[in-house]
């Protein structure tokens, strides 16, 4: 969808050769203009009244940046978050389930919730690939630390 196009644009921009970069950036811009056309329909934004699409390259980009908020999508996400929260609290109160299985389920549910907040409410889904990686890659470090250090502590406790 729209974000994929944009992702492609960001990706291509990574090419180190400046020569290759310029036309590709243009292409990305053109793609965003298309998005703008989509975003514009049924949207009474005065800044959009600014002439032909070709001339409104930056505007198209802006519409992509703003990524026209989708209220229905926000409500679906809200429902999903509410359901997942109820599910989590429900799972936590089930008796007779192994601690490990329950912990892993709860962590899975929590990470799902965190991911959909970041993707939809923080609009990460609509950012370029580079910005997505800028955010996602560093957060792998604490995750790896957590896995290694917590298992080490648990192992020591079991065998020490």
């Amino acid at each position, binding site marked *: 969808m729209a974000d994929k196009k944009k992702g492609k644009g960001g990706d291509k921009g990574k090419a180190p050769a400046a020569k290759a970069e310029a036309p590709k*950036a243009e292409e990305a811009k053109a793609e965003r203009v298309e998005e703008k056309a989509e975003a514009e329909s049924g949207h009474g934004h005065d800044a959009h009244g600014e002439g032909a699409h070709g001339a409104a390259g*930056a505007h198209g980009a802006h519409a992509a940046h703003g990524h026209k908020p989708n209220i229905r999508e926000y409500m679906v996400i*809200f429902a999903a978050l509410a359901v997942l*929260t109820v599910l989590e609290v429900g799972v936590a109160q089930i008796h007779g389930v192994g601690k490990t299985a*329950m912990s892993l389920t709860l962590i899975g549910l929590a990470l799902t919730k965190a991911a959909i907040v*970041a993707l939809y409410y*923080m609009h990460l889904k609509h950012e370029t690939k580079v910005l997505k990686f800028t955010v996602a890659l560093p957060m792998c470090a*604490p995750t790896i630390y957590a896995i290694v250090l917590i298992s080490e502590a648990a192992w020591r406790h079991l065998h020490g």
Partner: protein
Amino acid sequence: MSATATAGAGDHGDHHGPIEIPDDPQYGVASPGKIAMWIFLLSDGFSFGGLLLTYGILRGGAKQWPPNPELHEPHLGINFTAGLTFVLICSSVTMVMAHAAAVEGNRKRLVSFLALTILGGVLFLCGQMQEYFGLFHFIPGLDHGLIHEGLHFGGSAYANTFFVTTSFHGMHVFSGVVYLTVMMIRSMMGKYDGGNHDHIEILGLFWHFVDLVWILVFTFIYLIP
């Protein structure tokens, strides 16, 4: 395009209508402020990561949790905190609605939704005060706080990790409420009229991050058996 970009940069705060961000091959049209907020949130994420790691290591290495049964420390109430989690999720929804109103250029809706978001944050803080100190124990159904029940800071690894992590998060909610209030006042002054929504989106990033972290803290500290 460059002319509008310069104009936008010149009077950032008072600019009416969307501010043009030149298209960057890597970061698209994400504004410098937005990228900066993301990087700040990363560093903040590491802070929370450190606290949760400490908790995980202490808990993973303990025979039982709470680690000192002879202290008779109270267990954390799940249902009340689940309510607080829901309040924060609701305030995230009102935040995205506020941003949507800013994109539309609807000042009235923007201010109302920011006010609702502030209300959510304040309710959360009240809930946390109740949880710690039992400030509202005169309301039927609410008990005395955890401190009254014998959970003391410095008492055990259980008490310490709980208080440090949740209060660090509470501090974020508090700064979020201050940030929201400042932005609501600026919105009332018309600083974000005509679709000038970038600063509202950046505010939203911070607020959603506070919600996102709470989702993780709630699971790790309260729910995990």
